[in-house]
């Protein structure tokens, strides 16, 4: 038996050695054959509750890059053209450690000049922390790799590192203008309340620091749990509001919303805020419908302006109003929407940003004049980053996207959409 075991071990060792040798020989050959493409690597949540975000962003990114390549690819520093190539689109499962692992893998084992995607704000926060904070700071041993995100929307993330870039809407401006418009259009709506999923940083911070304050600023009266310090300035009374919000909140994985819905029903508000991602937003909306809660206005979180909301709770979401950075309202947006749908995805404010990012990469590559050789990867990444940082305006699907050089944050055009007869309809276009 022992002899058999030894022979078996020998065979396994031989087999492994052969495979490793073959892989070692094949890798440089593969690299040399494809070294004149400009490589990017994407990642996002392709498993878990936020799976649809990664799936949609991947479809949008790959579709946009296919369009760019069909139109001739990108111009390199020496005047020649090369295709853009998505090496792979990895599943980071919305986990911090997996995002960091993919970032390090991209940096150290591939020729990608930019990492694209990353679904969750918390994961981006961790990943951006691993990057070098200030470009050229030799005392900082952080990772030097440009990252261009389409989905990490939590306010203030871009300042973590000069290597981090985001193409996400400015929620402060979106909600401020939304409530100003709702105020003028609905003079009979006076009071409001609402809930949020407190285990999701984006939902929670946007609810307490942005949405509620914007509503108060435009004359709506908060009738939720008492928050005496609540005021019209951004973040005024935020800590107190956070404590209060936790008394009528839910979590992303919750399946029962009856207590929260009953609580809000008792407050009898004219307007209800549902600051939550599609999955739990649908749970809460269905429970509201079951309890026959019928507010005059229903306002949701930006991330819920998606097909997932309609798939999950089309009738319960009827009337839901959300500001969004994407709607098929321009010829470019209509065309992109059709292409991505054919590729098996949906365009929403996040995946549309992934589409736009592909074109942003094209613009930055052409501005940087990179050589796209395997021996100039580090140099190309730096050139690309500098070019990306210098681009203050780019073409978005529904209008120009601008970027503030000081904060690193993008400013995108937006519209207000509402679920009408089971479909998202643009109800106001403030562009």
């Amino acid at each position, binding site marked *: 038996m*022992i*002899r058999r*075991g*030894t022979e078996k*071990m020998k065979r396994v060792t031989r087999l492994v050695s052969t495979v490793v040798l073959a892989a070692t020989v094949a890798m440089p050959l593969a690299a040399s054959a494809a070294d004149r493409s400009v490589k990017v690597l994407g990642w996002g949540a*392709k*498993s*878990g509750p936020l*799976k649809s975000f990664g799936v949609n962003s991947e479809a949008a990114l790959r579709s946009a890059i296919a369009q760019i390549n069909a139109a001739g690819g990108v111009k390199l520093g020496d005047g020649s053209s090369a295709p853009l190539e998505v090496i792979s689109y*990895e*599943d980071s*499962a919305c986990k*911090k*450690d*997996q995002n*960091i*692992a993919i970032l*390090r*893998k991209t*940096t*150290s*084992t591939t020729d990608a000049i930019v990492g694209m995607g990353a679904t969750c704000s*918390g994961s981006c*926060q*961790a990943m951006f*922390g*691993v990057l*070098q*904070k200030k470009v050229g700071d030799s*005392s*900082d*041993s*952080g*990772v030097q790799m440009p990252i261009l995100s389409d989905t990490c929307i*939590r306010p203030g993330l871009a300042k*973590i590192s000069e290597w981090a870039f985001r193409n996400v809407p400015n929620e402060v401006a979106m909600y401020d203008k939304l409530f100003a418009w709702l105020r003028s259009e609905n003079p009979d709506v006076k009071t409001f309340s609402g809930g949020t999923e*407190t*285990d*999701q*940083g984006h939902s*929670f*911070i946007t609810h307490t620091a942005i949405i509620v304050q914007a509503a108060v600023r435009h004359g709506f009266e908060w009738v939720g749990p008492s928050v005496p310090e609540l005021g019209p300035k951004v973040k005024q009374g935020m*800590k107190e509001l*956070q404590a209060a919000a*936790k008394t009528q909140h839910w979590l992303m994985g919750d399946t029962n919303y009856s207590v929260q819905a009953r609580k809000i029903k008792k407050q009898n508000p004219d307007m209800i805020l549902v600051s939550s991602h599609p999955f739990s937003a649908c749970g809460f909306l269905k429970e509201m419908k079951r309890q026959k809660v019928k507010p005059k206005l229903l306002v949701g979180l930006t991330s819920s302006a998606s097909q997932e909301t309609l798939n999950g709770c089309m009738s319960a979401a009827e009337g839901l109003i959300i500001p969004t950075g994407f709607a098929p309202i321009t010829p470019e947006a209509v065309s992109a929407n059709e292409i991505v749908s054919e590729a098996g995805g949906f365009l929403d404010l996040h995946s549309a940003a992934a589409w736009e990012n592909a074109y942003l990469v094209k613009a930055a590559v052409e501005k940087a004049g990179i050589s796209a050789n395997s021996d100039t990867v580090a140099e190309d990444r730096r050139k690309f980053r500098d070019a990306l940082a210098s681009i203050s305006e780019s073409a978005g699907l529904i209008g120009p996207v601008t970027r503030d050089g000081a904060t690193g944050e993008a400013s995108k055009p937006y519209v207000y959409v509402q679920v009408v007869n089971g479909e998202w309809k643009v109800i106001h276009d403030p562009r």
Partner: protein
Amino acid sequence: MDYFLNLVNTIGIHTLLGLSAYILLLTGQLSLAQAGFFAVGAYTAAVLTVILGWGILPAIGLAMLITGLLAFLVGFPALRVRGLMLVVATLAFGEFVRMFFYNFRWRVTQEGVEVGPDGTMGFSEIRYFAEHGWTSWEVTSLIWVFVILVMAIIWWADQTRSGAVLRAVGEDELAAGTVGIDVTVVKMAAMTAGGVIAGLAGSLYAHQITMLDHHAFTVLLATFAIAYPILGGVSNVFGTLVAVIFIQGLLVEGLRFLGDWRMLLFGALIIVVMNVKPRGLFDSQTLRWIKSVLRLHLSRRIS
């Protein structure tokens, strides 16, 4: 190389977490509190380096001390119960810690920037290694010095009377008590040692990942902590390491393309191992077989 070192670091940190549960398993205790101790170690060390400006080693040292003390205090009431009730009690502790950090806020302004734990928003920019110019090799070396040290101490203890006492309690508490072993003291010592090691793992994790929030310390992490030694076997410390390499290296990282199926595979694997190798992959029988194969191989070489 950076990627592989990152993977090696993850394996090292999870090995420490698994070893913290391993010690308790030796005494027959199944604890889901390790994720809680891991979280306390992580937050403590991060607060010390980011807010108070401590060096990494003193910060790790104090984090280990605090988690050890906490484990000692938690051990008193928790170890009064056993079996499933202990699982529930330690699970409750883990959730208590998680919810504490979910609400814990301590923000200070440093050079015009707010830093520190921020409740749901987490505790970001724990950038000690990058800010102090540590290379990936240096970080890996630091982590693995601790891993080797802890493994060596546990291995050595296992060869001495202490190891025999731990295992005696694990095999049969009543019998151990009748031969004069103070079962409560042994269990408390194991709980405290487990807390210290989990605190060490947590403090390294915080600086490796650069951002902490309550999502990282769920019951899933506690499950992983006990799954490593159960899957690897408690015959010796190397079983935990092998299980971590298998789960973190192969299942989580190597099979990333499988998406949601990865976790399903993890669950299925535990069930299979529990049925096929109830004493773990690296049980004494397997070790004996490996030793005999190696001995035969060596004797052939010599002859």
